[in-house]
């Protein structure tokens, strides 16, 4: 099960901000700046970071919903970043996305059956006559009842709407799913149900997930590995349990320590990270985190750190991670 499904190499996604009179772009928003990572088949990779760090753009870039400036995206070993729309079409059903706000991502004028049929229509192997049966199967997968097919989205609660979105994403029998803040709009109790459903579906259908969220505490429940993003770059990737137990990057630790813990006896929580997120128009030189890092040295200001492998599939981009780790500055 260790084969690579998604292989990103030096991905850059820039958006033009300003153009000169000659139509040449003078300023870019560097939303994703040189990201290299692999997602294994059957894995759930978490992607965390503060708002504006480029995590959603990275998810959209993999699905070719955002333009790639340079770098390669391999899906199942095939390079897809340069394919034109027609050549890319066979890959679209294999990669699906579930968005944050389920209410906004379901057409209010369509019944659930129509919503699912739209997705089924792009699967060549499903005949029209099978739609009803397939739709019922999909509803069953997400624990909704067949009679729900004939209702409109507004008749469902937020959690149920998100189930419909998941059913629609599964309709094309995808191999890879991107969940972009898919549980952020839900209550804890409903969120727990959706997370359990996702973990269950992933095991049953051997799916590969990219789970984007700003909420660290839910990551460990469903993700195998977690990538931490800051100002357009991935700072650290580690196995989920290792990441929270012993973060290697100072930013990961800061992010983890800012989460309010639902335990009044642990009052040492909520350590404060000073400073603001840097502008993606003009990110800091060297390590992007250095202006806010209390361990930063002169080297951090000049030299951008390279990915340092900790073990297979786990790496960190920090000049001083070994020193910090040995001194126990990153553990509690």
């Amino acid at each position, binding site marked *: 099960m260790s084969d690579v499904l998604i292989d990103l190499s030096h991905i850059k996604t820039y958006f033009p901000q300003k153009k000169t009179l000659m139509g040449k772009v003078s300023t870019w928003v560097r939303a994703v700046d040189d990201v290299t990572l692999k997602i294994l088949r059957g894995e759930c990779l978490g992607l965390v970071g503060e708002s504006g760090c480029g995590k959603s753009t990275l998810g959209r870039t993999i699905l070719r919903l955002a333009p790639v400036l340079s770098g390669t995206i391999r899906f199942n070993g095939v390079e897809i970043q340069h394919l034109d729309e027609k050549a890319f079409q066979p890959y679209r059903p294999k990669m699906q996305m579930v968005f944050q706000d389920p209410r906004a991502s379901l057409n209010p004028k369509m019944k659930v059956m129509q919503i699912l049929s739209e997705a089924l229509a792009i699967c060549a192997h499903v005949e029209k006559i099978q739609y009803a049966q397939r739709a019922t199967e999909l509803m069953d997968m997400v624990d909704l009842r067949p009679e729900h097919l004939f209702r409109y989205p507004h008749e469902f*609660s937020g959690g149920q709407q998100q189930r419909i979105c998941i059913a629609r994403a599964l309709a094309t029998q995808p191999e890879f799913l991107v969940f972009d803040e898919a549980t952020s709009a839900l209550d804890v109790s409903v969120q727990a149900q959706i997370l359990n459903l996702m973990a269950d579906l992933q095991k049953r259908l051997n799916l590969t997930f990219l789970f984007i969220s700003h909420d660290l505490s839910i990551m460990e429940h469903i993700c195998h590995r977690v990538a931490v993003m800051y100002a357009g770059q991935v700072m650290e990737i580690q196995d989920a349990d290792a990441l929270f137990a012993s973060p290697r990057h100072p930013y990961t630790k800061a992010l983890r320590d800012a989460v*309010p*813990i639902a335990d009044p006896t642990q009052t040492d929580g*909520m350590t404060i990270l000073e400073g603001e997120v840097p502008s993606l128009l003009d990110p800091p030189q060297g390590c992007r985190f250095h202006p806010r890092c209390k361990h930063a040295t002169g080297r951090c200001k000049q030299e951008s750190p390279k990915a340092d492998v900790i073990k297979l599939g786990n790496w960190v981009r920090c000049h001083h991670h070994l020193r910090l780790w040995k001194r126990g500055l990153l553990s509690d």
Partner: protein
Amino acid sequence: MHMSHKTHQTPILSVEDLSVSFGGSRGSAKILEGIEFELYPGEVLALVGETGCGKSVTAKSLLDLIPQLSRNRSGRVAFNGRDLLDLSSRELGKVRGHSIAMIFQNPQSSINPVFTLGEQMCRLIRMYLPDEIKTLCKQKMVKEKAATKQIAQEKLAEVGLTETDRLLKSYAHEISGGMAQRYKIALALLSSPEILIADEATSALDVTVQAHILRLLKEMSQKKGTAILFITHDLGIAAQICDRVAVMYSGRIVEIGSTLDIFQKPLHPYTRGLLEAVPKLGRKEPLRFVSGMIPDLANPPDGCRFHPRCDHTRAVCSKQRPIIIEKEDGHFVTCHLYSATLPDE
């Protein structure tokens, strides 16, 4: 019996039997039913619950911020010896923003986009702090305008904002969410309110920014003795900064007690379910959740509103509404499990 502390302190705000219902096409929906709680000076009280349980309606009802056309309400909200529900809109206008201030979830959208932050802030300073402006004018021999600006800068610095000069010239869209929320807090504190209502004030912010804002609010309440009613769905926030927690379910407060009691000895089955559904760092087993759905408020279940989802339901739960029981000192619960005598058993 009131849900009150057995302390010598007198509450600054006490809500008694507050009920709110909305008329709708499907009949009237009882959004709030018999809400009772008290707020003491200098304390942070969390109001937690799921979406649609009535947390925000409770907060808004206190200041009558709900459109009046379709709502009916009853009960008593005692504040400084007056009942807020009895006040005329003119009298209530003197309370709003003055002695009871409120901050909202989305800071950027609650700032007027067509005026600079400075213009909006200086207007409020002239309104709330005319004496301070006058003394500053005399002391420093400056014009009123300069004095107002100086006060604005001081107040912004108090909430941890830097580059206040530039900030006062900016518009709402030019600043980040964290800065906007700090600015709103600075505005809310201008009138030195006795009560600050924070309605999901940090839900739209990143965890790192949220940590800043929470610490700031906690400090403000400790330093100035402002009582804070913190409405949130995040139990982590309640655990970290609140002194007491009130848990709401379907328009009623089901449990209220000190933060330690609520988290370590939760009594109500709903509170327990809610606590189990919280994802925790360093714990990997599947999340547990309260099965079933929140009830339809137009047609709520009889008796205890939680009984269709409760694991401990008895016959009495579907018939009779549970009364408030003080299980321990200052720890109140409304659940039949804790009744001394059960009517039909």
